[in-house]
């Protein structure tokens, strides 16, 4: 009995040691990958920030309305810094996944290939989001100025509506790109967007018919008023 117990103990210890010895290089590989991730991520971040600084990307993002737009969402960091941090984490995660893959655990099998397969979607989604923010700012600014110059009272409301329409559209596109609840997003977007357009059409048709008629007449006929000057 005692021998059997001893044998079982030794066997378990041997197995444990064998497994430990086999696992140790994998663990070291993970640690190395994490360390490499930190170093390479930091280098990429540094390089990217230098390039962005050289091309005056912060001025460009300020001009395109990206910085103020992010400021409104509570992000106080400058855009190049934000992109630098993002690049760091992307690179670090990339190495971290390689490390986890190196552990060869059944639970994380093919993690790396899955993540790599998903990466293009993430990159595309980031681009779509970035373009969406820029487009939302640009179009709302254009609409605001045009509405103010046309002396439309609800200029800011119209501009905000345009901004949010573009933002909602962008969010829907990003979620679709990421494959998150694709069908629900498309259906929800169609219902909301279609509903808004229908509501506006009904509102204009029933409530604002006269105003629309007058506005169109005024615009198309361009009757001369007392305050109309020859500007040029």
């Amino acid at each position, binding site marked *: 009995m005692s021998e059997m117990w001893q044998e079982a103990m030794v066997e378990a210890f041997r197995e444990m040691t064998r497994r430990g010895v086999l696992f140790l290089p994998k663990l070291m590989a993970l640690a190395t990958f994490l360390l490499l991730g930190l170093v390479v991520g930091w280098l990429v971040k540094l390089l990217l920030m230098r390039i962005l600084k050289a091309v005056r990307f912060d001025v460009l993002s300020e001009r395109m309305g990206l910085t103020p737009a992010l400021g409104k969402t509570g992000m106080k960091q400058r855009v190049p810094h934000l992109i630098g941090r993002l690049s760091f984490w992307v690179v670090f995660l990339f190495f971290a996944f390689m490390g986890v893959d190196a552990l060869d655990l059944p639970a994380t099998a093919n993690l790396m290939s899955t993540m790599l397969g998903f990466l293009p979607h993430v990159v595309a989604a980031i681009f779509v989001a970035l373009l969406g923010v820029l487009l939302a700012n640009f179009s709302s*600014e254009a609409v605001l100025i045009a509405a103010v110059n046309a002396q439309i009272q609800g200029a800011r409301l119209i501009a905000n509506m345009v901004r949010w329409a573009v933002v909602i559209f962008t969010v829907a596109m990003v979620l679709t790109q990421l494959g998150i609840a694709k069908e629900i997003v498309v259906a929800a977007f169609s219902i909301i967007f279609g509903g808004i357009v229908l509501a506006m059409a009904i509102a204009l048709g029933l409530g604002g018919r006269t105003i629309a008629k007058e506005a169109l007449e005024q615009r198309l006929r361009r009757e001369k008023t007392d305050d109309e000057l020859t500007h040029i």
Partner: protein
Amino acid sequence: MQRGGWEQVQEQCPEVHKVDLLVGLPTFNHASTVESVMNAILSGAKASFAHASILVTNADVGSQDGTPEIVKRTVGSLFPLALVNPLTEGMSANPFAPNRLSYSGMPGREEAFRSFFTIAERLQAKACVVIDAAVRSVTPEWMDLLAQPVLEKDADYVAPVFRRQRYEGTLTNNLVAPLTRALYGKRVACQTGGGYGFSGRLASLYLQKDFWEGDAARFGIDSWMTTVAVAEGFQVWQALLGTKIQDVRGTTVDVSMMLAQAVGASYHYMERYQDVWEKHAGSSPVPEVGRPIEAGIESAAIKVERMVKGFRQGLRDLLPIWEIILAPETLSGVLTLGLRDEEDFRFPLPLWVQTVYDFAVAYHEKVIHREHLLKSLTPLYLGRTASLVLETIDGGSDEVQHTIEQGCRTFEAMKPYLVERWRFQ
């Protein structure tokens, strides 16, 4: 491919190789006015330049009312005539600039002018006179007034000056002309349309490719021609042409678009000619030809309500944009204007000049999209115009002219502010 209508000239007038005077007539559906304009041109050419070799060129951009046929019939065999279509040189509408029409209201006018420049250069024309076909008040003397300074006095550019109603051309008088005067030191009225005279030398310069870059030449050929001539140091004259009665057509170009085109052209050339305007101080008058123009015609009372309302709405809604464009001291000055009653509303000249200069610096720095920047100036311009009307409401044309002149001097006096901000912003 046609090159600015030159091949059409060669086909139609093979015997013409060199001319003293090129007469250009840009047209687009001008059947109702073109005959009288052409008759005045022909009478003027016969009377003043009987011994000169002349080519009449009609650059028609696609009239559907038989305008070129009327021109052909009217000219007959008096002078060689070339009918060209400037839009056949492979040009096409810019798909990214839909619904954009220059403030002249005539589509393709810029291309028509480009044709005249090309033909003038190829024919080594000593002078070129371009007269708008929509102007009913063209008289035979116009030919002499526009061509004679070029042919006999070595002028390179003859700009038109008309007798105008006291508040006519407020954008030109309050912004474009004072800015041009302060920048380049020449007192040109910067009035647009009607008629122009220019030398073959200047036409060749106008044809240089880089001048046509950007929207300045494409949507504001009139102010573009004046600015380039003045900035390049050419001999600029002004022809006092009397009253301009024009066939006004409905145009979709609104105030903000007009402002963006005219002011955009001025700002655009500020970047190109920085080294020229930075060293100029003060201004000098340019030589004039023609009978002195009497005081402007009194116009009907102008209601400023809508203009003040436009300014106030701008102040309320465009403030975040103005905060980016204007210097803090300018912005605080503008903010206080919103507190005044309509009757007491005043937009002080120094503040207006500072605003225009701040916008120029912001345009240069590209702080926001340039078209947005230019259009966001509209409420401020309406505010200044309302102020001009209120300041001179009890006075006549002389008082308006006096205020405009004061504005020009303020632009000149405050130029160091612009130079400093432009350099060190």
